[in-house]
């Protein structure tokens, strides 16, 4: 199943890139479509942040919960405010959570 997901995502993402390189610019002249496309990464990334940090595996499936990951996210936030590069942001998040769990 994971392999199938990798292939589907790979082929699909390539076709999305190729479509952008191949279709005329006019396609996205419709303002609703353009705004939706602009907002999609913002909304999805924000949802991914929230779910990755606040969801734990409970006995009856996924549940909300707070643990060291939230502290890691807070530290990542500070790193971003200080204009740290991406790799530093990721390391700071991991390190903070790891230290809290010692």
């Amino acid at each position, binding site marked *: 199943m994971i392999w199938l997901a990798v292939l589907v*995502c790979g082929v699909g993402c390539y076709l999305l890139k190729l479509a952008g390189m191949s279709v005329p610019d006019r396609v996205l002249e419709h303002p609703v479509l353009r705004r939706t496309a602009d907002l999609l990464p913002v909304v999805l990334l924000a949802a991914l942040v929230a779910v990755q940090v606040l969801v734990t595996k409970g006995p009856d499936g996924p549940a*909300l919960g707070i643990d060291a990951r939230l502290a890691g996210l807070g530290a990542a936030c500070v790193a971003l405010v200080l204009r740290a590069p991406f*790799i530093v942001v990721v390391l700071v*998040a991991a390190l903070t959570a790891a230290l809290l769990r010692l």
Partner: protein
Amino acid sequence: MALDAATRTIVRDGIAVGVATGAYGISFGAISVASGLDVWQSCALSLLVFTGASQFALVGVIGSGGNPMLGALSGLLLGTRNTLYGLKVAPMVEWPGRRRAAAAHILIDESTAMTLTRTTRAHARAGFLSTGLSVFVLWNLATLAGAIAGDSLGDPRTYGLDAAVGGAFLGLLWPRLDSVRNRVAALLGAALALSLVPVTPAGVPVLAAGVVAFGLGLIGREEVAAS
């Protein structure tokens, strides 16, 4: 063909971006194996999908116990932004048929950014190719290194690798939080996803948050006109 000075500078900048971006392929590789993919699946993702946010999304959904196909769908939705990039890049590089098909694979955030600022076709092509190719090579090598390292670490929680995923997504989101509209969209998306967590299978909340983008897209006319 000898390169003129301006082109040499463009190529050098492109390679520098590639080195910087490739470095965080290490974190992708490590997070990917921590999420339950094996080394080969992680490397295949970087080779075939080759667009960071989509790859992180796919492994994120799998890591949280979601159906891998829901992860693939999240990755595809995030991949739609490359379509927008293509619309802007294509008229600048003007590659025909087969070359365009090959170039499409390295159409990503970085290669787009290093192309759109150019004023001639030759410089646009130089920026696109030098950035896209150097990111591709280094991203894939780094994924392999990160995946092998992550594989030998043992329990990923000990090293906070589960927290690194949230940090990675925040790092990708951060530069996009540059307007009130986008900040509101981010908060709504996060809130909707969290509210769905207790009542839907893993992977669904993130996809459902995409509805917020469409909703705000429908009503956002005035704000865009004003900016």
